[in-house]
């Protein structure tokens, strides 16, 4: 380097190394099933604590894998009326609802041109096995619009082989835009309250504009509706890791 006075240049210490501790980062962003987070309300937190204990007990005995809406799952349940006493159903998860032990998820599949949906309870003792066949998040958290979409988007092969998971870190997001059957639909999915990004709306422009009339842009700024779950989540994560180590 050319110095200003002919003297050697001022000593520049090397930049400090930024240490990214991947372990602690992973701890914070590890998946926490949504039914553990208690809903907003004035109930005694003791009730949710007791439910969480029971949920952890069940998880120790039976492995509930991490899954989101949009994954293709295969569930084997016990049934006294089935041959071999157990039945298997494959489908795409369209909705996860409920909190605590009553947490449910709805699987949808189209069998022989007939759409079938089954709502399963995650913590029911009747469930014998839960396998994730395809890991894939979608653009929305609620895929109820698949009922009004063309049936090809809800058909999944019953004898599908589980797709092997590549990375242990990222779950791919499928940015599929689904084509719908002609209107009428069960709900007016073009309205902004559903906030659906996964449909390819082939409606005329004036209909899309008319739907915007029902938008409520003030909702996202409403402070009374805010529910910050970061501290609650951190507490629950700590509790979970302690209990599962025992």
């Amino acid at each position, binding site marked *: 380097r050319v110095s200003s006075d002919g003297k050697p240049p001022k000593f520049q210490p090397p930049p400090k190394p930024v240490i990214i501790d991947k372990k602690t980062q992973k701890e914070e962003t590890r998946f926490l099933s949504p039914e553990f987070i208690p809903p907003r309300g004035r109930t005694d937190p003791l009730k949710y604590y007791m439910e969480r204990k029971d949920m952890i007990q069940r998880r120790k005995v039976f492995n509930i894998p991490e899954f989101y809406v949009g994954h293709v799952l295969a569930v084997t349940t016990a049934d006294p*009326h089935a041959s071999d006493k157990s039945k298997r159903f494959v489908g795409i998860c369209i909705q996860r609802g409920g909190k605590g032990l009553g947490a449910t998820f709805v699987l949808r599949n189209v*069998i022989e041109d007939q759409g079938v*949906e*089954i709502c399963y309870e995650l913590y029911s003792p009747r469930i014998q096995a839960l396998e994730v066949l395809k890991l894939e998040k979608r653009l929305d958290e609620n895929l109820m619009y698949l009922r009004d979409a063309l049936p090809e988007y809800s058909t999944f092969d019953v004898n599908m082989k589980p797709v092997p998971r590549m990375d242990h870190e990222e779950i791919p997001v499928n940015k599929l835009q689904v084509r719908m059957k002609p209107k009428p639909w069960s709900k007016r999915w073009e309205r902004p309250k559903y906030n659906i990004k996964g449909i390819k709306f082939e409606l005329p422009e004036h209909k899309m504009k008319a739907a915007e009339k029902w938008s409520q842009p003030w909702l996202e700024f409403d402070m009374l509706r805010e529910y910050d779950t970061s501290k609650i989540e951190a507490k629950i994560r700590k509790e979970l890791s302690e209990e599962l180590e025992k």
Partner: protein
Amino acid sequence: QGLLRRSVSHSLLSFGSITGACRAIQKLTRVRVVDNSALGNTPYHRPPKCIHVYNKTGVGKVGDKILLAIKGEKKKALIVGQKMPGPTMTPRFDSNNVVLIEDNGNPIGTRIKTPIPYTLRRREGEFSKVLAIARNFV
């Protein structure tokens, strides 16, 4: 124009265009006949409708017998699938499915391709013949 669309023959039109409300089956509900009987599959300008439910309440769920009006005739039928969500772990179908039946319980068709819920197996005595012709169970 909406009336025109609805009156197209039922065997050609998919049942997605009917009102979105999901209730169980009662009088005047349009149903879909699922077996391969001639009466159920020949197209007619009016869809098969329920005219009576053999139940204390007038509401029919899966496993109830109903009276159907098809092609100007009255026929008994058994409900094998409904659009209304039932108890958890039971399937919910996208259309109200029905199997044509005689007065003594014998099915008229010879094959049922669409899936049937396992809960019908509980009443094996009454529906044994219907369950025998069913192919897929859900």
